[in-house]
């Protein structure tokens, strides 16, 4: 199979194994050295690099936006969308006034394969794999749900203490290097203003909290921003999203990423559940990838633009 020669010839409308996504990242950096760089923030349990693409037009420690896709490995449309976002950022900088203004003041960090071991495993051994791949001592069941492993209500209701459960929280907060690497990176950076995690599927845009019924102090603003974002998203294909706090919109979930990021002081913390055609679940057909990414980009831009225009 011939490798794509450049980021233009990469096929964004299909699912790619991890080595091709890694190659794509390197190509994008090589082709856009003044805008894109790759930071390795850590290693997965099996030793794969945790790559983050940094989109920056200069400056030092600028206010920044974090986006991660694919923490649950089987949600392939999220990694595919993340790849599309990376190219979109490169293509739109200097062309789209809103994105250009954002990038002239802020940096964007994008982790496309947030759970690389799980993603590799979902391609090679078990398409339905969701968790990390670290063994659990005393159990034959492997892995931790990396979206129950954050230090935000960790161990509370809405996560399992059983290693065999799909929502196993792990032995302690940040036990997974895939989570701890982000935690360390975000803390050491210290200037993130938005933190956005993308999941699939069920068409929702959610904000904190998931572990407690207590509304977050910015509930009103986040609610209104979520409403604007889902309206923009629907403008392309009419895809309807629900929105609200995690606990009120879906169910109690403890140890989630955006509860942690919000508690770190990152006000604009959101998580997406991408498109659900109603029949495919995690096996979203490839002809849905670009429509999904395109509509999601509208909502991402709404959140990023609001973050840019409302410094804090």
């Amino acid at each position: 199979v011939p490798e794509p020669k450049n980021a233009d010839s990469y096929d964004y409308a299909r699912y790619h194994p991890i080595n091709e996504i890694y190659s794509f990242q390197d190509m994008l950096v090589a082709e856009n050295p003044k805008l894109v760089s790759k930071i390795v923030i850590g290693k997965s349990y099996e030793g794969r690099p945790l790559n983050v693409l940094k989109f920056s037009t200069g400056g030092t420690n600028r206010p920044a936006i974090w986006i991660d896709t694919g923490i649950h490995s089987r949600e392939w449309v999220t990694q595919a969308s993340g790849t599309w976002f990376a190219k979109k950022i490169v293509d739109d900088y200097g062309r789209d006034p809103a994105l250009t203004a954002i990038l002239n003041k802020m940096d964007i960090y994008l982790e496309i394969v947030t759970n690389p071991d799980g993603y590799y495993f979902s391609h090679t051994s078990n398409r339905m794999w969701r968790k990390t791949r670290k063994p659990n001592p005393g159990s034959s069941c492997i892995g931790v749900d990396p979206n129950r492993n954050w230090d935000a209500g960790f161990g509370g209701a809405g996560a399992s203490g059983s290693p065999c459960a799909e929502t196993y929280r792990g032995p302690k907060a940040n036990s997974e290097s895939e989570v701890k690497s982000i935690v360390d990176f975000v803390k050491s950076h210290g200037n993130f203003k938005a933190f956005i995690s993308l999941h699939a599927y069920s068409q929702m845009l959610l904000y904190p909290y998931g572990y407690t019924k207590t509304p977050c102090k910015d509930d009103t603003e986040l609610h209104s921003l979520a409403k604007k974002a889902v309206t923009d998203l629907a403008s392309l294909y009419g895809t309807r999203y629900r929105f609200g706090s995690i606990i009120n919109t879906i169910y109690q979930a403890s140890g989630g990423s955006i509860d942690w990021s919000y508690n770190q002081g990152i006000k604009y913390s959101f998580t997406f559940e991408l498109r659900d055609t109603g029949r495919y679940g995690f096996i979203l057909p490839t002809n849905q990838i670009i429509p999904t990414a395109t509509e999601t980009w509208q909502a991402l831009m709404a959140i990023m633009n609001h973050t840019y225009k409302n410094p804090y």
Partner: protein
Amino acid sequence: KETFEGHQVLRMYAKNEDQLALINDLEDNHEFELDFWRGVTDVRTPVDVRVPHHNLRSIKIHLESNAIDYSIMIGDLQAMLDEERMEMVSAAR
């Protein structure tokens, strides 16, 4: 390589909180080896669950005996995965 021959994804529709609680109990019951694709939220939102072939009959009987409505969202998961794999290979070519 783990395969999913005959696995179905059932979409369950609870009519009330009691039925929702029954579906919720299934999530804690590891005996059925269920994989909740879309978890229990409220009565307006269906629950999607992957059921291994060897437990399909028992789950369907359980749902029917409790008058819980369901539909088959995916009839044979492995057939879909085979199709996905073939599409990936042919697109790569």
